[in-house]
């Protein structure tokens, strides 16, 4: 076997340099069949197949994502995903029901979550990145449990503080009600900070081959986006209120009592259709604009309005078809998000490729990349 011949022949078509775009080749009708077979086998096996389904789905989306003539691939082990899901389910059940059981049980559960949460976060990232490859090299997540504790634990403490204090408050306003108000408003104010901290941890510790990604701090950009999103929510709520009044008037004239859920439903829809895409698009832009891999800079041209139109279309068609449009919607969304990605570099990509080496085995954090698969939706 002949490796590393000094004069590598590289396709001229690939070496455009300057900027590279990603393309997505997945199709809704093809993914529909993968999706429905996955769903059927998952229901048939009482959920166990869901781990294998997840691998098939992830492989489909990565193998159809193309950059500079090569595709991405996913190598996750379904058994690891199944283990992760069982653990996540156990923690979720414990968290949901422990406070019904007793305050002590609730506090013990939260203490366990605080200890295990950072570890799970790190493991989940290692699984996700470590099992993704491009051009024969693996991505990775170089962080230890200690890093996880340092970065994630403060976020978890803030997140759970409201729940813990609320457990001691009685209905007539007894107990630490002042503390509760203080803590819940402080956690709300810290939400953009927490979100940024997680994104920063994810992107700054990610690796590709022997290189590390870098992420510039962008806390203020996160705050700006959140403030604008809150403004949109307020506008949406005002519009929804107006709409519910308009709907209620004819009902009142016919003598029917005005249904109070209409306003709530409209506000929810407005929120989902406009505010979510706006925030998602803006934050994606912020995150990628601040991410680098050596001389490669990342950009996404994702924009609020096209994303909102796409989401509206996806929701409408998914509802009309009782869910059958969902795989087509997933493909459309993936195509938009993938094809918005651009990589800018002064050096042609093939030149960079020559210098990119595989990560030496047994480097920090790679050891247990196969032990746990967990969806965190982050």
């Amino acid at each position, binding site marked *: 076997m002949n490796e590393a011949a000094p004069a590598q022949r590289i396709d001229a078509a690939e070496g455009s340099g300057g900027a590279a775009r990603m393309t997505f080749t997945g199709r809704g009708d093809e993914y529909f069949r993968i999706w429905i077979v996955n769903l059927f086998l998952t229901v048939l096996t009482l959920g166990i197949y869901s781990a294998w389904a997840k691998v098939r789905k992830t492989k489909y989306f990565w193998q159809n994502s193309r950059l500079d003539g090569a595709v991405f691939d996913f190598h996750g082990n379904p058994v690891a995903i199944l283990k992760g899901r069982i653990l996540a389910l156990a923690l979720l059940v414990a968290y949901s029901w422990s406070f*019904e059981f007793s305050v002590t049980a609730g506090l013990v559960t939260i203490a366990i979550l605080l200890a295990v949460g950072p570890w799970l976060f790190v493991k989940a990232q290692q699984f996700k990145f470590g099992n993704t490859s491009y051009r024969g090299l693996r991505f990775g997540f170089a962080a230890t449990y200690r890093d996880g504790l340092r970065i994630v634990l403060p976020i978890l403490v803030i997140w759970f503080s409201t729940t813990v204090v609320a457990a001691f408050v009685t209905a007539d306003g007894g107990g630490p009600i002042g503390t509760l108000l203080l803590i819940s408003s402080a956690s709300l104010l810290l939400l953009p900070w927490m979100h940024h901290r997680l994104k920063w941890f994810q992107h700054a510790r990610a690796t590709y081959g022997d290189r590390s990604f870098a992420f510039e701090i962008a806390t203020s950009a996160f705050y700006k986006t959140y403030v604008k999103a809150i403004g949109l929510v307020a506008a949406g709520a005002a519009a929804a209120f107006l709409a519910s009044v308009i709907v209620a008037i004819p009902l009142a004239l016919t003598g029917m009592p005005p249904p109070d859920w209409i306003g709530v439903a409209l506000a929810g829809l407005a929120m989902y259709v406009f505010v979510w895409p706006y925030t998602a698009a803006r934050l994606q832009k912020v995150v990628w604009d601040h991410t680098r891999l050596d001389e490669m800079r990342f950009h996404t041209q994702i924009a609020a309005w096209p994303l909102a139109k796409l989401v509206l279309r996806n929701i409408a068609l998914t509802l009309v078809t009782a869910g059958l449009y969902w795989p087509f919607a997933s493909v459309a969304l993936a195509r938009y998000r993938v094809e918005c990605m651009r990589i800018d570099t002064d050096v042609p990509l093939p030149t960079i490729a020559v210098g990119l080496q595989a990560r030496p085995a047994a480097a920090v954090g790679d050891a247990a990349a196969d032990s746990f698969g967990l969806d965190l939706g982050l």
Partner: protein
Amino acid sequence: MTTLAIRAIRFDGKTAVARSVDVHIEGRDLTVVDDEVVLDRTRIDPSRVSERLQRAPRIIALEQGATLEVPDPDGSFDRALEAAGVEPSAVERMQRFWPAALCSLAGVAILAVVAYLHGIPAAANWLAFRFPPGVEQRFGDELMRQLDQRVFDPSTLAADRREAIARRFSEAAAKVAPDVAFRVEYRRMKEEAGVNALALPNGTIVLLDGLVDLANDDDALMGVLAHELGHVAHKHSLRTLLQALGTGAIAAVLWGDFSSVAANVSLTFGVLRYSREFELDADDFAIAFMNQNGIPLDPFADFFTRMEDAVSRKRGASPPEFLSSHPSTEERQRRLREAQVR
């Protein structure tokens, strides 16, 4: 013996360099050649070949971390691979074949309906009667503690009236269901008397003052208590909880990917239907209870009308049945009157 040469990209797994190569398949052997130099020669191992997708390249893992990405727009590479023993798995065949995919769709629908109508209720019933009793007791005690703290005040009914109702009911229950442990507690709501009665998982039956006042008839109250005892005897609280978990799991599998709102909506509708079934089940228990004790059912049936009037005065018209946790009053009264032993 088929021979085929196809252009592909090879990555050596050590750098990110893409190398254009020719891939030959001869029988079961795969050879990777670049400019007359043979880079790999290997027997094809089906487990190292990725599944075929319409527009993605075929990915083949070679020795020592090297990989091949083989574009296959006309399917010729796939045919060569099949000839070399790379057979699609059963799942892959289903995914490629439209009729099989549509059968899967029908299968999902059938399984979901069967699980919802039969599987989940049966599993919850089986599990509920094998649950450690301590847990149920704990849930009930904690719930009662929280209700006392947040919504209930002590009852203001006269003590002898409370005792009389409880004594008459206990004697009747001893005849019909001697092995069901229960306790009757009296409370009122913080703001109002509260027209309601409820059964907790630990066997506590709570009667609110408003209901006792509104009923103003001991036979009707026996019906209410018997109905609640039905919930206790058939472990409806625990079964509701377990069935909600089961329905939630199905809803999450079917719609959780799309939206947690859609999943929650279907969960809510699903659980409401279960709840109406349990109400009718508790009514049946009450009917048997009353008939065996020779207590007339008509006062209990009449009481439903008064109760509905009282509730609608406060909250407006009642919602349609599919939106409600209880079956319609007319339906319940009809069942009670039909069961009255004349």
